[in-house]
């Protein structure tokens, strides 16, 4: 399975990358290549131009600000999972990132790539949506900041314009007393989740993000409700498509079970 031919570009600045994107309509950006690589090897995707972002300097930062952490789009999953700053201030993100694929995938896969790819079962889109992250993008017309709930449009589809590149993501910092949990159900370790649940508790407000059940993450909020009720409501809220490999009814059941377990874990965590 060899990819179709393409022309290769290796811009050294964001501006050059944007210029290339604008110049070539039949082009694709490559960052980690862990999702795009297989698709190109299988010839499911055959861009005429490939724009490699790995030489654009300064996109792999992790910076702590007053209210948020800002993480560069080229930060690798391994970096995110092991960063002391992220573990301290956004532990849900670090925990979820540590479950992505396998060790070698996490060495290359990037935050920006994962969000732009927008797989419905992926960890980072789910966490971004649950935490209400802001995705910072740059394009021909300059910078835009898109709230996660507006960024993910539908399955594998985002609000990015053809000339725009994800540059960084701002995650709200957890406050003292905040709790979280992340659970996923997959057939094997490292597989895409069939259903994933991210849960945060902040001042008695419980936020549940459900991934894998629909085309994009579904975020629900609850105040003072019992775990069983929350789980049942989550199950009722999702409408999974029928699928030969995973029946919709089974997926709904999993949502209920995982939400119940995630809420219990969240309530009991430190």
């Amino acid at each position, binding site marked *: *399975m*060899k990819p*179709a*031919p393409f022309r290769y570009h290796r811009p050294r600045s964001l501006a050059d990358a944007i210029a290339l994107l604008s110049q070539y309509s039949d082009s694709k950006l490559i960052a980690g290549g862990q999702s795009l690589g*297989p698709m190109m090897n*299988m*010839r499911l995707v055959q861009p005429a131009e490939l724009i490699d972002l790995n030489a654009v300097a300064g996109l792999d930062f992790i910076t702590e600000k007053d209210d948020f952490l800002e993480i560069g789009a080229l930060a690798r999953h391994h970096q995110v999972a092991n960063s002391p700053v992220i573990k301290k201030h956004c532990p849900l993100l670090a925990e979820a990132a540590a479950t992505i694929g396998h060790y070698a995938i996490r060495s290359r896969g990037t935050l920006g790539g994962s969000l732009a790819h927008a797989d419905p079962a992926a960890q980072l889109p789910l966490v971004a949506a649950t935490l209400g992250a802001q995705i910072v993008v740059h394009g021909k017309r300059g910078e835009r900041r898109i709230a996660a709930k507006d960024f993910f449009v539908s399955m594998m589809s985002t609000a990015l314009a053809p000339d725009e590149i994800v540059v960084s993501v701002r995650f709200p910092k957890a406050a003292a007393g905040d709790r979280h949990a992340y659970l996923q*159900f997959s*057939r*094997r*370790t*490292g*597989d*895409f989740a069939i259903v994933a649940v991210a849960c945060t508790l902040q001042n008695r407000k419980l936020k549940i993000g459900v991934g894998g059940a629909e085309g994009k993450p579904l975020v629900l909020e609850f105040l003072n409700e019992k775990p069983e009720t929350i789980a049942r409501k989550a199950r009722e809220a999702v409408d999974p498509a029928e699928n*030969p*490999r*995973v*029946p919709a009814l*089974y997926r709904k*059941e*999993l949502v209920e*079970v995982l939400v119940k377990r995630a809420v219990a874990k969240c309530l009991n965590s430190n």
Partner: protein
Amino acid sequence: MRRPKLRHIGAALPRKEDLRFLTGHGRYVEDIEIPGALHACFVRSPYPHAKIKSIKTDESRKLEGVVAVYTGKDLAQWTTPLRMAPPIEGLHPVEMTTLPIDKVRFHGDPVACVIATSRYLAEDAAERVEVDYEPLPAVANLEQALLENAVKVDASLPSNLVSIQRFKTGDPEARKREAFKVIESAFHQGRMTHLPIETRGLAAVWDEGRQHLTVHIGNQVPHPYRSQVAARMRLSESQVTIASPDVGGGFGQKIALYREELTVCAASRQLKRPVRWREDRMENLMAASHAREDSVRTRAAVTKEGRLLGLELEILEDFGAYCFYPANYLARVVAMILTGPYKLRDYAFEVKVALTNKCGNGPMRAPMAITSWVIEGTMDAIARELGLDPLEVRRLNMVETRELPYTMPTGEVIADITPRETLEAAVKAIDYAGFRKRQAAARKEGRHLGLGLCSVVESTTYGSKFYKAAGIPGSGHEAAWLRIEPSGAVNASVGLGATGQGYETAFAQVVADGLGVEPSQVRMQMGNTDVAPYGMGSRGARGGTAGGTAIFLAAREANEKVLAIAAQMLGFDSAEGLHLVDGRVEREILGERVKTDLTLAQVARTAYLDPTALPKGMAPGLDFSKTYDPPPMTYSNAAHACEVELDAETGALKILRYVVAEDCGTVLNPFVVEGQQHGAIAMGLSGALLEHMRYDEHGNNITGSLADYLVATSTDLPGFEVIPMHTPSRGNPVGIKGMAEGGVMGAIGVIACAVNDALSPFGVVADRQPLSPDYLRSLLRQT
């Protein structure tokens, strides 16, 4: 024959093969550099069933680097079709052209071959080959295949039922009438594929000057493969060399002469240039060889105490679209050995095999894998329906040691096996009694534990008499040679095909004990048909038994001649009291062993370079050839036990403990044997829990990548506790029973039994594999 003391056989010697694999210096087919080689790429059908109206190759041939594009019509000129017509009752003959000409029969069927200067360019060109298909209705499953007016997969057959065989002994009907109860059970195994980590591939090198074809290919049966290549290309066997280097796993997928391989060989001859092909993983999943997908039913007539009076068996197998093997070949063995260690006189079976528009089946490590699940699952069903302890039902029905040899109802004779001993050892190791208590306590907490037991009687090695009796052409013998070089170096060979089983080490140990040298002095030369003797290759679990014994016999003959020469050189009348130990001649004087100064190297030098000093009438040289035909069937046995926990809310399973007690007779190398057991169990569990080659209801293969076809990783499998309980076989000179497939049989049986034990409070029975979480939830949801 004087049997030597075994010092090297049975030693846990780390393998000679390891160094090159660990340091990246293995030599698999794709690593062999062949200057000027062209690359092949196949155009494959996107339809499960379609007429080929036309194939246009003009556009593809215009591309840079493209040398040729061949289709079925071209191959029909250069090769003969495959005719599969063994004289077996109930089996229809079938024929297969090298590449399809009239129609394609499955999603992925190869229809054209592009030859270019690189694989990248060949794939570009393949996309531009224009095939005009007329889609036909497809037979997507067995149900559709056996309908009254079903579309025919093979137009030459009266229906899609390519094989039907029936057997009856005793009076199972009468036993059903007399029985306290007749218990029906079903077992459905999903479609799988072998998935060696190295895909198929080869490099064919045609030498126009010598009119000779050399094929570099990872293959389990180099000589039979050579015979096939020669016949299909209308060459003499002396015009073909098969050279099998290091192979990244076979598991039964690397036996048949596949159409892609024959096409590449023919292309090389046609172009007078080397041509190579490496299958990619998508091709391997879609179009190499599939396996299993069988549905089995039993009807067991039993007494109130659970004793088996009679048994009826039905097997229905989905064989796919093409027969690379006789269609009955795989399912029949299941029926023949089904009763395993259990006593039975009244038995009947019906085995039906049908064609569908899927990739054709082939033998996958333990083609008879479903056997133990079926019989052990039947035992569990008996226990369940009669309210008895499943272990007691097994004990009641199992053959006693004093009743061996025992003749199964099909005429198969089991001897030198220890099923009772291995069962009791497994039961003890898994703490059966203690488990029931823990299970009860866990249930109170809402946790669902299950324990499974599965005894295995594994048919490992088939002798020629078996094939004759079954009407299957072919031999079960194996061939070996041993040569001591003038310097005392020892070379040996056997007609097997290594794919990771450690032959280079284990057989060096056999030679070491047979001849009297150290394993480090011995080098095995295998895989090249110009070098190795004509043997039947590596399949089933015959390597150790058939190959090991042939090598041992050659080594003993060598030992005899070496000592006869030694006696002459030492001035003795006879070799009585002489031994060769680690390459040095020793003398026995009054019960004590005394070393002489005479070494093997010196004996060898004399044999080759000073033949007038040899005993009168003795020919020069130290070159020995031997064949060995094993008994019609050799069996080994084991008992598997495992403990699982079922998450009733999600259907997820966790294996908490896995124990196997095994008896494989004399073990050549305990490392190798244990490793084979681990690997076989792993493959069985992977298939039972995860693997599923799926087609949709229209016959499209929807399992296109390793993201869809799931195989077990290290987090899906437990550690394995192996209890060795080996007792030698009296059926061959070394006492080997063979093994390597029984682990698959035991694993798929034991996990199903464990799951059903966990499900018992719910009153549902899992009867299909893979035991996926959504399948288990679908059962639990009903309760």
